[in-house]
């Protein structure tokens, strides 16, 4: 069908167009609100700035379609194929994208607020700057299983998302808004979280081995039993974070802010804490074998039964600290 015919018939009141072929057609700026194009072939079609809110696009083929600036709010797109589609700056607020194929698509600066992304395949897609607040990403093992593997998620807004147990090894979430995200048991090995804001996030038992957290913000984060071996965390902000029983051997924590954090029973062997601020922190039974604590600020810290015998302690500030034997530091 050619685009003019479509628009004519649509303006005349028709909305049922399922199963038609519109591949490669130019429909930029077209007003097609609520149209039914389910099962249609729209591959490589141009729909820039098109109005498609509440449209039915279930099982449609939108491979390589140009949808930048399109308005797809509350559209129904379950099982649609959006592989390699361009959705730069598109609006998909509240859209139903369950089981859609969005692999290698561009979702740069897209609005995905409250979109339903259960079972969506987002592998390799570019979600830089996209806003996913309130989006449903929940794994429902028997039915859906969405994946963000290999997706680019820089500067993405995932505040308060539920990513419990998510598989996100090597994901790039630098600069992202991850405040209060639930990452419990998540696989974030080798992930890039530099500059990300994880204030108040839950990272209990998450695996962040080898992850990059340089300059990340983790204020008040809950990270009990987290795996951070060999992670990079220079200039990280861990103020008030809960790191009890964490595995942090060989971690790079230069100039880190760990004020009032709790590191009880944590393994910091061979970690580099040069010039880090650990004032008022709790290091009860913390294992600091061969830990580099040059220039560390330990004022008012609690080091009862901490293992410090082989740590490097040059220029450490000890004022008011409680020493491993329980006594208060005396100059």
């Amino acid at each position, binding site marked *: 069908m050619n685009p003019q015919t479509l628009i004519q018939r649509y303006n005349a009141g028709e909305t049922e167009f399922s199963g038609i072929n519109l591949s490669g057609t130019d429909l930029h700026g077209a007003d097609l609100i609520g149209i039914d194009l389910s099962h249609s072939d729209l591959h490589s079609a141009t729909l820039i700035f098109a109005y498609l809110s509440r449209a039915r696009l279930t099982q449609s083929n939108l491979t390589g379609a140009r949808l930048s600036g399109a308005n797809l709010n509350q559209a129904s797109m379950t099982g649609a194929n959006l592989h390699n589609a361009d959705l730069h700056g598109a609006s998909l607020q509240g859209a139903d994208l369950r089981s859609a194929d969005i692999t290698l698509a561009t979702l740069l600066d897209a609005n995905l607020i409250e979109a339903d992304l259960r079972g969506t395949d987002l592998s390799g897609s570019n979600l830089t700057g996209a806003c996913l607040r309130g989006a449903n990403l929940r794994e429902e093992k028997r039915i859906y299983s969405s994946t963000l593997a290999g997706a680019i998620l820089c*500067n993405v807004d995932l*505040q308060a998302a539920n990513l419990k147990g998510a598989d996100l090894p090597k994901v790039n979430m630098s600069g992202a808004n991850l405040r209060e995200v639930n990452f419990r048991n998540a696989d974030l090995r080798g992930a890039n979280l530099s500059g990300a804001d994880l204030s108040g996030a839950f990272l209990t038992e998450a695996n962040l081995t080898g992850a990059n957290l340089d300059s990340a913000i983790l204020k008040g984060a809950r990270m*009990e039993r987290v795996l951070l071996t060999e992670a990079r965390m220079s200039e990280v902000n861990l103020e008030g974070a809960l790191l009890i029983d964490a595995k942090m051997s060989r971690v790079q924590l230069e100039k880190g802010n760990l004020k*009032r954090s709790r590191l*009880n029973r944590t393994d910091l062997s061979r970690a580099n804490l040069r010039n880090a601020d650990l004032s008022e922190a709790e290091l009860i039974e913390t294992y600091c074998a061969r830990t580099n604590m040059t220039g560390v600020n330990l004022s008012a810290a609690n080091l009862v039964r901490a293992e410090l015998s082989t740590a490097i302690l040059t220029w450490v500030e000890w004022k008011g600290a*409680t020493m491993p034997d329980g006594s208060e530091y005396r100059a």
Partner: protein
Amino acid sequence: MLVTSSLETIAEFLEQHEDTLRVRKLLFCVCERRWENDTGVLRNLSLNQLVSRLQQKYQTFGQLSDALFGVVQQLNRQSQYARIAQTVLNQMSTLYDEQDSSEQTQFNFAPDNTEFLGQAKDTDLTLSFEHLAQNLDAEAEVIRIRKMIWCTCRQAWESNTQVLLSLDLPALLEEIQYTFPIQSDLQAALNRVVNSVSRPAEYSAIAQTILSHLELLYHAAPPTHPPDLSDLPPLALEPLPTDPPTDYSSPSTDSPASLDSAHLKTAVSPARAAAAQADTLVSPTPADAQADTVVSHQSPSPPPELTAVETEYSPAPETDFNSDLDIERDDNTAESSSTTAVVYDAFEVRLEVMKYANPLRAKIVAFSTLHHTFETRGQDWPHLRTQPFDQLLQTLYETYTDLETLVRQLNQTAEQLESPDDSLQAAEAIVKAMRPYYAAAATTPSV
């Protein structure tokens, strides 16, 4: 009849006694298990009633004697009160059986006074719990201290300041002493509370403060003799709390040793303490409410390790927390009220613009205002793609420090773009999202 007339006689005698005020204090304490210093209150007491209650409470003369001297032993002016106790006993002996009254037990207490406290400063401020309560109330973190004590005794969290201040602290301290007869028990209990709040670091320090104050309860001078409560008859207290629920602590149970060090000081800077104090006495601002919701609504299904106890406690500590930590967090939510310093939050601004305008249109307006008019048919697309939207918005905010100018520029630009109507709407959305950050800057003095 005989008993009643005896009661009246006794009451009258005690009334006439030169030290009648002390008599009232002592009898009141034996009956109510707390010390009253207010003269007005004391004078209003009916000695008749007090004596009658004592008689009903203590079936034998021996029990009465133990009760009276049990209290005397906890006071500082033991010699004076011992004399008074003896007087009362002499008077009340007639109320008991002949055979009992003949065994007037002379209580022999050790000459070295078992004092709970050091010096009593003014005249009859003697009973330990009262004094301890006053010391705790003098602390900067008094509200938090009361919260913890209440929680330790009742396994419930109270965040209402008025309620907290009106709690009978001496009675609670007495309860604590009874429930946790050894210091390590109290340590463990406080620890459980610390582990169940969402700001364990802060409350760990509070627990330490409490322990150091209550140390006196467990280490009366000389330090090797903890007070022997077996002398006291059963305390007429409210029902004691049941054992804390076993699902209390989070999986990472801190060993009680985490509060071992008696030397850990609560390093609360004066400014911070004052701020915390001020905050707790003020009704919650919208920012506090925001912090509350931000904290308590993490995700659709809360992490299972948070027990019911924890989700009950977590909002409360957050709302009263007024350190730098929370102020910065409040800054990061654009919905925060103008009472807190507002720092530009790129994520919030972008969110607000996206909610009310087409993201691409808004991006083009921002781009065009900062660079050059965007050509949809032209070659500007690649350039646009490399400019992240939140960065464009932030540059706008930084370039136009005056809201009026920003509005003018955006509108001018929008009018020249294709689809001016949609572009103007996008411009409006940008202004709306950024307005709070301009308003705040206007009210705060320029640097």
